[in-house]
């Protein structure tokens, strides 16, 4: 068999050729395998009839341009996810049920140098995308508790401050700190300390709303950004958190322990920066600790200027 | 036998248009290389027909077309352009162009326009 034909059928890349009417004139073995559609079923068919969702503006624009200008065209996973819907071949992934694809297009000419067809290459990049996603998540997420890490929280808080400022909406934040955390570690061991952190993260995640941004801010410190939330409402939420945590038993290595948190609450001031609002919340948190722990203290934005 | 004005900033463009105009009929030709020359020359030369490019430095073809038609509502101006987008064509016709030709000029098309333009009675 012709070498090119062998390459065409064994290469681990999808190859499709379309004529000027967008009818499929070639569909290689890789395409058959991954689409589950044999070549006989598609040859001569219009690709838009077979895959209606395909013929959106990007695909049309690209194909038309290649026929008109003979350019090389790219169709990236980053912008489009995929071209031809296919199942993720790497096993089921709830994040990426479809195969993620990078594609390219190019002209095919006849002996008179006229463009009579367009070829499409389809490359499976699902595993790269999954890996990249993991890396991105790792950069955002605190490994132990599974909630956001400080770096991500800081950047989100900065964004939300800007957004609130732009739209004139209120914003509040909570700073929580586990009371006597060192004692927990010393008395019951670090595994118990870790368990406490995880358990409290879980509780907090259930209590806050989907629009709220919860992160681990320090060793035993948490911060929760509450967009579009007025100060008074934030205090109510803080109190609910304090109460839930104080009344939830924490079973750890055979011993029942109770853990409490101190919480500082503050609302956004129009001129707040990341530092000024965090400082104010920290001060409120400090007041709560000083006043005996297991309580909520608040520092309204309009009182002392940020330290 | 007519007075024909040719306006284009490119020597080669003027050359190629001239090559499409029959030489044995005794047409009188004058050339210019931008919109301001077109406007001045129109007043002194009083051509029966003008061929004009759109993209010129200084005063461009659209502006010159509008000005010439303002000065003389009977002026016959044929626009030559490479940019044959619908909205360009519409704008050009709105401004009162007699016709529009694609570049590079082709003998048959140029002569057809010539015949049309010179056959029309002046009002």
């Amino acid at each position: 068999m012709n070498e090119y034909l062998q390459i065409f059928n064994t290469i681990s890349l999808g190859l499709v050729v379309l004529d000027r009417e967008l009818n499929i004139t070639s569909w290689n073995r890789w395409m058959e395998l991954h689409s589950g559609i044999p070549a006989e079923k598609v040859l001569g068919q219009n690709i838009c009839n077979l895959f209606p969702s395909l013929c959106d503006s990007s695909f049309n624009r690209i194909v038309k341009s290649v026929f008109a200008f003979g350019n090389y065209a790219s169709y990236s996973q980053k912008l489009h996810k995929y071209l031809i819907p296919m199942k993720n071949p790497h096993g089921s992934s709830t994040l990426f049920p479809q195969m993620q694809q990078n594609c390219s297009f190019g002209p095919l000419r006849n002996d008179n140098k006229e463009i009579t067809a367009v070829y499409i290459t389809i490359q499976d990049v699902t595993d790269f995308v999954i890996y990249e996603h993991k890396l991105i998540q790792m950069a955002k997420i605190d490994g132990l508790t599974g909630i956001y890490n400080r770096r991500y929280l800081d950047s989100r808080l900065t964004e939300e401050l800007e957004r609130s400022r732009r739209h004139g909406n209120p914003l509040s934040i909570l700073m929580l700190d586990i009371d006597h955390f060192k004692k927990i570690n010393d008395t019951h061991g670090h595994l118990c300390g870790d368990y406490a952190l995880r358990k409290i993260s879980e509780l907090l995640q259930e209590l806050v709303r989907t629009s709220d941004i919860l992160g681990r801010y320090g060793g035993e410190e948490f911060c929760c950004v509450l967009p579009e939330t007025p100060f008074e409402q934030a205090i109510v939420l803080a109190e609910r958190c304090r109460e839930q945590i104080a009344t939830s038993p924490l079973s750890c290595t055979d011993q029942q322990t109770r853990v409490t948190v101190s919480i500082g609450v503050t609302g956004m001031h129009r001129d707040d920066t990341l530092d000024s609002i965090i400082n104010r919340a920290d001060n409120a948190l400090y007041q709560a600790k000083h006043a005996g722990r297991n309580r909520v203290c608040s520092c309204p934005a309009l009182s002392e200027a940020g330290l | 036998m007519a007075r024909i004005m040719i306006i284009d900033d490119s020597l080669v463009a003027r050359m190629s248009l001239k090559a499409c105009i029959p030489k044995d009929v005794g047409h009188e030709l004058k050339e210019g290389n931008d919109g301001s020359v077109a406007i001045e020359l129109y007043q002194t030369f009083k051509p029966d027909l003008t061929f004009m490019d759109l993209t010129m430095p200084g005063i461009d073809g659209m502006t010159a077309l509008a000005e010439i038609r303002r000065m003389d509502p009977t002026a016959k101006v044929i626009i030559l352009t490479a940019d044959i987008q619908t909205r360009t064509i519409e704008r050009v016709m709105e401004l009162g162009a007699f016709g529009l030709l694609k570049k590079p000029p082709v003998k048959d098309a140029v002569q057809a326009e010539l015949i049309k333009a010179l056959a029309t009675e002046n009002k």
Partner: protein
Amino acid sequence: MSNPLRELTELEKDALQEIMNIGFGRAAADLAEIINLHVILSVPHIAVLQSDEVISYIHKQIPDTTDMSMITQFFSGKFNGGSFLVFPHGEGRKLLRIFDGEMALLGENYDIDVLEKETLVEVGNIIIGACVGKIAEMLGDVVSYAPPRFFSQDQIFETLDDVLNGSDSFAILFKTVFNFEQYNVSGYLFLVSQQSIMPWLKQAIAEFLGPYE
């Protein structure tokens, strides 16, 4: 020592200018009519320079390279060379609006710089193909393209340096400014060919002038 084959005569330059005008005019018209992409291409400027002057020439044209993004794409045929599409940095992200409607699919896990790059590559390919393709067509040639590459900021001059230095001693440079009105994005397109295409270029120009002489 001047070699007639190295230089373009005034007439040839004028002819090439007109050829490029027409080519770009057609490219802009096709972009608008066929794919509904409205670009305004300025009258191109042509220069024949020593290869090592090309970089400083481009440098002078671009206000601030530390703040730019660039797509490069090599093309080959009888008309061969490199195309360089340069945008002020960050402009590219305005073009993301071309994908309005499809963007909903992207979700929250995206990096704006990455999206900008991909958009520039996707749209840039088309612009380059239209401009280079039409010029080639006018000169009686058909070109093919290498895959595009994207560079930003400091990488730009390093790349240009690598690409342009150490080759044939003369280069022919074409520059145009393009503008996407509806997205308020403009940039530059440079086409650079080595002097080795000169004999063919002169021949192609002569053929273009043929019917008019």
